C-alpha cells in the first residue's frame, strides 16, 4: 500500500499559540506575536512520527466557523476545501469557556478532531485547573494539554495525531462530510445552544479561583491604559526604542564604513593591478560596491536594531493596547480601530502592513487602511531620515542622537496625523461610510523570548535586507553608473533626467537629483539616499566618505540647506509606495485600480506637503 501523507490543520481562536505549536512540531519559523491577528495567511510544514509523514497547516485564528473577516475566511475556506485528515484545535487554557464555543462548533462539523489545551503554564499560574479526562469525555475527542513555548506535551500531541490517523482507516466509510452544511438562519439558533453547552462543559471540567479582574495584568493596564499615563507612556516607549536604535547604530555603522572604505581602496588597487578596463572598474567599484557598502554600513544597523526592539514590545502584548489608547482618533476619522495594528506592522515594512489589513472585516475600512499604510515610514526609510537629520538638524555632540530621535519621533507623529487626515477625507469621499466597530481582544502580558527574538531578527530582517540589497541595489547601482557615464551630446543620460526634473523639484524644495533618486528608488526605499550620493559624486575619483562629515560636505557642495533637508525628509515620508508594496496592494485588492489610486494619493500628498513646506520656510527662514 502506498504510504499516505496525512494532512493536519491547526485551528483555534486567535492568539492561542497555533503558530507556536506549528513551529515546535515542524522546526519552522512562522511569525508569532502576542496579539490577535498575527497570522493572516496559511503556512504549510511537515513532520514525521513513527515513519508516518504529516503535512501540517497553520491557519489564522478564528472566533467561529462562520467567518467575519478575510483572514478568518482563509482559515474556514481551508477546512471546507481541503478536508484535512486530522483537525487539531489549539485552545487557550486560561479562557477555555470562550474557546469551547469554537471547539464545539468544530467537533460538530469535522471528523478526527484533537483538542490541544495550550498555555497550560499560564493557566497553572492563574490557578486554573483543567480536568482533561473529563473534557475529553464530554467532548468525545482526545484532549492533550501543552505548553508549546517550552515544548511540553508535544510528543504526546504527535502520538495522539498519529493515533487519530489510524481511526481514519477504521471508519473509512463514514466519510460523508458535514462541514459547513448548516444554513445561515440556523446558525444563530445553533450558536445559542452551542454556547450553553460550552458553559455546561466548562463548569464540569474546569476548577478555578482565578480573579480575572484583579490580576497583575489589570494592575499594569491600570497604568498603561490610564487617562494620565497612557499616551505619554506610549510616546516615551517609542522614543526609547528610537533612541536606542539611533545611538546603538552609530558604532556598527562607523566600524562598517571604515571597513568598506578600506576594502574599496584594496578592490580599486586590485582592479588597477590587473589592468581592468575603466568601465568595468566603474561599474563594480563605483556602482555596485559603493551602493552595497552604503546600504550595509548606513541602512542596515538601524534596521537590525529597531526590529528586535519592536518585536520585544509586540511579544509583550503592547500593540493592541496602543490601538486601544488611540482608537478615538480613528473613530473620528471614521475608520476601523484595528487600523493601528496594521500601521504598527507598516513601521516594519509597508508590504507587511498592507497584508495585515486582512484582519479588518469591513471592506471599506480595510481599503482605507491599505491605501494609507504607506504614510507610516517603514524600516527602510528610517535610516535615510536619521542620516539627513543628523547632518542638518542635530549637529554633533552628546545630545545629537537624542535630537535625531526627536526628529524621527516627530516624523512618526506627523505620519499618524497625515494618515488620520487622509483617512478622514477618504471616508467622506470615495470610500464613504460610517465606522464599523472596534472589537479587539487585549491579550495578557507575556514575557518576550529574547533568544527567539534575536534569532528571528537576524534571519528575517538582517539577512533579508542583505539579500534584497544584493538583488535590487547591486543591479541598480550598476545601471545608474552606466546611465551616469553614457554621454549623449556631452551630457550623461542621467543628467537629462535630473535636469528635466530640476525646475519642478525646486518648487518642492528639492532638486532634480533627489527627485530622480526617489523615482529610480521605487524598487526599494533603502537605496534612495545611496543613489543621491552616487549622482552627486559625478567625479568618481572623489574620495569615498568615511563618516557623516564627508557626506555633509558633499551635500552642502551640492547646495543643500536646512530647507532641502526638511523637504527631503518630508518627501521620504510622503511619496509613492515602493514596488513591493504596490504589488502587495494589487494582490490584496485584486486589480490595478487601488494600487493606482494609492500611488496617486501618496504622490500628490507628498508634492503638496513639500511645496507648502518650501513656501513656508522661504517666507520665514
Amino acid at each position, binding site marked *: 500500500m502506498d504510504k499516505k501523507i496525512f494532512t493536519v490543520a491547526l485551528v483555534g481562536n486567535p492568539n492561542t499559540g497555533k503558530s507556536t505549536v506549528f513551529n515546535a512540531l515542524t522546526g519552522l519559523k512562522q511569525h508569532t506575536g502576542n496579539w490577535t491577528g498575527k497570522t493572516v495567511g496559511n503556512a504549510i510544514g511537515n513532520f514525521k512520527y513513527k515513519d508516518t509523514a504529516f503535512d501540517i497547516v497553520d491557519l489564522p485564528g478564528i*472566533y*467561529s466557523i*462562520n467567518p*467575519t473577516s478575510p483572514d478568518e475566511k482563509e482559515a474556514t475556506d481551508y477546512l471546507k476545501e481541503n478536508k484535512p485528515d486530522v483537525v487539531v484545535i489549539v485552545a487557550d487554557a*486560561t*479562557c*477555555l*469557556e*470562550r474557546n469551547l*464555543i*469554537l471547539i464545539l462548533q468544530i467537533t460538530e462539523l469535522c471528523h478526527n478532531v484533537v483538542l490541544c489545551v495550550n498555555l497550560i503554564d499560564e493557566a497553572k499560574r492563574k490557578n486554573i485547573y483543567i480536568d482533561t479526562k473529563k473534557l475529553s469525555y464530554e467532548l468525545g475527542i482526545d484532549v492533550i494539554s501543552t505548553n508549546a513555548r517550552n515544548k511540553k506535551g508535544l510528543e504526546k500531541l504527535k502520538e495522539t495525531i498519529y493515533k487519530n490517523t489510524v481511526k481514519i482507516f477504521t471508519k473509512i466509510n463514514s466519510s460523508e462530510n458535514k462541514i459547513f452544511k448548516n444554513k445561515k438562519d440556523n*446558525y*444563530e439558533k445553533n*450558536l*445559542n445552544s452551542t*454556547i*450553553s453547552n460550552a458553559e455546561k462543559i466548562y463548569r464540569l471540567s474546569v476548577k478555578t479561583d*482565578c480573579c*480575572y*479582574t484583579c490580576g497583575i*495584568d*489589570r494592575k499594569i*493596564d*491600570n497604568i498603561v*491604559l*490610564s*487617562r*494620565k499615563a*497612557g*499616551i505619554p507612556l506610549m510616546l516615551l516607549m517609542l522614543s526609547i526604542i528610537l533612541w536606542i536604535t539611533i545611538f546603538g547604530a552609530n558604532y556598527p555603522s562607523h566600524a562598517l564604513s571604515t571597513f568598506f572604505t578600506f576594502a574599496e581602496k584594496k578592490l580599486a588597487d586590485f582592479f588597477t593591478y590587473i589592468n581592468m578596463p575603466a568601465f568595468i572598474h566603474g561599474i563594480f567599484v563605483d556602482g555596485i560596491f559603493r551602493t552595497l557598502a552604503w546600504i550595509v554600513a548606513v541602512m542596515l544597523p538601524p534596521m537590525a536594531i529597531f526590529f528586535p526592539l519592536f518585536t520585544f514590545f509586540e511579544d509583550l502584548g503592547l500593540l*493592541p493596547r496602543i490601538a*486601544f*489608547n*488611540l*482608537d*478615538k*482618533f480613528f*473613530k473620528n476619522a471614521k475608520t476601523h*480601530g484595528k487600523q493601528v495594528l496594521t500601521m504598527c506592522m507598516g513601521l516594519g515594512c509597508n508590504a507587511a502592513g498592507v497584508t495585515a489589513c486582512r484582519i479588518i472585516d469591513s471592506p471599506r475600512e480595510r481599503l482605507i487602511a491599505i491605501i494609507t499604510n504607506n504614510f507610516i515610514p517603514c524600516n527602510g526609510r528610517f535610516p535615510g531620515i536619521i542620516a539627513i537629520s543628523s547632518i542638518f538638524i542635530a549637529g554633533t555632540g552628546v545630545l545629537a542622537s537624542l535630537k535625531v530621535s526627536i526628529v524621527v519621533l516627530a516624523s512618526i507623529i506627523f505620519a499618524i496625523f497625515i494618515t488620520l487626515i487622509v483617512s478622514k477625507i477618504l471616508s467622506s469621499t470615495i470610500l464613504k461610510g460610517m*465606522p*464599523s*466597530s*472596534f*472589537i*479587539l*481582544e*487585549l491579550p495578557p502580558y507575556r514575557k518576550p523570548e529574547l533568544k527567539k527574538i534575536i534569532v528571528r531578527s537576524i534571519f528575517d530582517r538582517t539577512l533579508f535586507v542583505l539579500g534584497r540589497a544584493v538583488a535590487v541595489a547591486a543591479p541598480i547601482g550598476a545601471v545608474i553608473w552606466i546611465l551616469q557615464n553614457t554621454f549623449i551630446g556631452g551630457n550623461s543620460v542621467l543628467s537629462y533626467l535630473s535636469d528635466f526634473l530640476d525646475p519642478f523639484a525646486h518648487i518642492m524644495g528639492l532638486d532634480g537629483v533627489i527627485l530622480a533618486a526617489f523615482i529610480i528608488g521605487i524598487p526599494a526605499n533603502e537605496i534612495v539616499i545611496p543613489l543621491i550620493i552616487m549622482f552627486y559624486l559625478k567625479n568618481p575619483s572623489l574620495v569615498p566618505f568615511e563618516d557623516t562629515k564627508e557626506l555633509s560636505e558633499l551635500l552642502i557642495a551640492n547646495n543643500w540647506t536646512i530647507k532641502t533637508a526638511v523637504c527631503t525628509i518630508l518627501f521620504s515620508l510622503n511619496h509613492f509606495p515602493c514596488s513591493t508594496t504596490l504589488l502587495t496592494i494589487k494582490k490584496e485588492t485584486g486589480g490595478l485600480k487601488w494600487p493606482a489610486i494609492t500611488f496617486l494619493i501618496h504622490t500628490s500628498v507628498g508634492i503638496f506637503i513639500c511645496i507648502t513646506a518650501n513656501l513656508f520656510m522661504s517666507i520665514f527662514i
Partner: protein
Amino acid sequence: MDLLITLDKVPLNVPVKIVSIKSEFSNKKRLTELGFTENCEIIPVHISPLGDPTAYCIRGTIIALRKEDAENIIIMPKEV
C-alpha cells in the same frame, strides 16, 4: 422601562449581567460568538485615555468595545 440600561452606561468595575443584544445590531453575530449571551456576567475594567473605547472582562477574556457597540448591549444589575 427604566430597567433597560445599556452596557456603555455601566461605571468601571461594576459587574452586570447581559440581557440581550439588540437584534438590528450588525455586529450581533460576532459578539455572540465572543460569548456575549444572555445572563453572562460582564465587567467594565478599563477606559481608553481618550474616553472611548472601554475594555470589558467577559468569560475570562478582555474585549474592548467602542461606545457605539456597547450601546447595543442591554444589561441589568447583577442581583447580589
